[in-house]
């Protein structure tokens, strides 16, 4: 009787063990599947871009401005426009983000105000970029009566800033107290301690944030539709509509012309490679720095 009981119990526990292992196997298998699907999606996107984009990669793309279908044309003005607007956006957004990060880490730390600022900055980080576009449209386009490259840059700056805020604050918090104290003990005023000791010590980390913000705004399309609009001619005037690579891709990809489509794909390849290369450099660089 007793032996029988033990046998049954052993049997039951064996089946339980088997079930537990099957559960584990199933979960493990599904987890592998999920990971493979995600990697496959990235692979599919890159493959599509390379397959369709490489064919159009030639000198004209970089030397000629956008042209009517059938005419020899390139994306030179769009590339230039993207560089100008992204550059100006970073020139506005990065210092503003740096100062806000300094406020959060050094001056406001722990205060109610700082908590609200951090919260709002995080919300702006994930806010729909199309809203920023509409906002700048009402602020800088409607009052002046025309679309402009400058308004595009401001819209991108608002999108770039929260990333710099985040990294600056995170980085400044890593600076050891002893280092600040050393600066203060030498008689340096607080602003010098912050700028020339703390910020300088973590400048690589802050650069990471700036690079990531460049990568983020360089591919933004939605806010530019309402601000810099796009321009098919070569124009460096910030007061006029300005072309940009993402908007040019959007215009061309929706067209029915073979050569425009080709340029859209090649432009897409350029934007994606640029953005991904910045990301890879940043991530490999920071990993090397940490270890």
């Amino acid at each position, binding site marked *: 009787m007793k032996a029988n009981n033990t046998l049954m119990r052993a049997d039951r526990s064996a089946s339980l063990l088997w079930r*537990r292992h099957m559960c*584990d196997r199933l*979960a*493990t298998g599904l*987890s*592998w599947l*999920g*990971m493979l699907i*995600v*990697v496959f*999606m*990235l692979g*599919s*996107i890159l493959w*599509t*871009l390379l397959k369709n984009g490489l064919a159009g990669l030639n000198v004209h793309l970089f030397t000629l401005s956008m042209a009517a279908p059938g005419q020899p044309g390139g994306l030179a003005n769009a590339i230039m426009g993207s560089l100008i607007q992204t550059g100006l956006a970073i020139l506005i957004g990065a210092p503003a983000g740096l*100062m*806000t990060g300094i*406020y*959060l880490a*050094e*001056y406001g730390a722990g205060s109610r105000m*700082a908590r*609200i*600022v951090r*919260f*709002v*900055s*995080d*919300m*702006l980080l*994930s*806010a*729909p*970029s*199309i*809203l920023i576009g*509409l*906002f700048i449209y*009402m602020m800088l386009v*409607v009052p002046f009566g025309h679309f402009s490259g400058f308004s595009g840059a401001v819209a991108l700056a608002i999108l770039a*800033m929260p990333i710099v805020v985040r990294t600056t604050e995170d980085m400044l918090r890593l600076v050891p107290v002893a280092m600040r104290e050393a600066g203060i003990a030498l*008689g340096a*005023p*607080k*602003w010098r301690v*912050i700028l020339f000791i703390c910020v300088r010590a973590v400048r690589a980390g802050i650069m990471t944030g700036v690079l990531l913000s460049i990568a*983020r705004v360089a*591919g933004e*399309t*939605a806010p530019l*539709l309402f601000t810099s609009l796009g321009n098919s001619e070569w124009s460096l005037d910030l007061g006029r509509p300005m072309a940009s690579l993402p908007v040019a891709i*959007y215009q061309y*990809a929706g067209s029915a012309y073979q050569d425009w489509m080709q340029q*859209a794909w090649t432009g897409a390849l350029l*934007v*994606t490679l640029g953005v*991904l290369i910045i*990301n*890879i450099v940043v991530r490999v660089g920071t990993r090397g720095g940490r270890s």
Partner: protein
Amino acid sequence: MEIPARQSLPAMKQAPSHQGGQKGDPAFRLLATATGVGVLVVLGAIIAVMVTGGWKAFATFGPGFLVSAVWNPVTQHFGAAAPVFGTVISSALALLVAVPLAFGTAFWLTALAPPAAASVIGMAVQLLAAVPSIIFGMWGFFVVVPVVAHYVQPAARQLFGHVPGLSALVAGAPFGTGLFTAALILAVMITPSITAVMRDVFLSMPAVLRESGYGLGATRWEVMRHVVLPWSRQGVVGGIVLGMGRAMGETMAVTFVIGDSNHIGWSLFAPANTIASLIALEFPESPAGSLKLASLMALGAILMAISFVTLWFSRWLLARGEQAAGR
């Protein structure tokens, strides 16, 4: 050696007040604080601009704006119901796909992967998150749309087309563009960010908890299910809500594949519109000061309200999760 040092001590205490740089302190503090407060001003201005910009539409159509599904530029009658419906349904469907994918990937990254592979795949996930949304749109339009049109929707119609109750979900001509395709693209776009949050909260759990689970003989899945998940619940939900916020505000990718139709229906495969895609598509034909532009701004205000509440909720959950982790 010691005497000069002692003598110089009082001098050092005095030193800062003599330095001209000290005057920079209040100025720098003011500058930093003003920039920080400037962030609040920007948010306030965004809210004010969206609400005042859309005021004309709210005033013209009243509360009916929210429930009317009409979008007719000819009769100058505009309503928000159709794009709001499209936004909610496409984001919800996207979450249905993205959450299992993200959870599986995060589980793999934190519990199953060899360290070297985890860092490579982790990087790939980050890169997927960095791909600009317009690229997702092109990829969706030229790669995913044909697949949905030729394979997915016909197959779905074969399977469910004759099942009462389900047939309406798969009805309509197989265009390939529509809610379902938009949801798929959105899912691919938000999976990396949900994965990143999940991985971070999983890894923030003290290793000793995980190890005690293994020590008791639990399998990897059991440790995930009964130790890691309960511990990181708030962070996981926060990440999912964050992903939903992203999906609802996404513009370019959706614009390519949603099909541009202001129609509310049962079919998952029918062309539709989200708030963001409608704004992007209709904006070029909406002159400043027109009722149509005001309606688009009003839609923007609704999108802003939805996404800010969502983001606020997710940040709140994530912050609470972090607090719990610190305890």
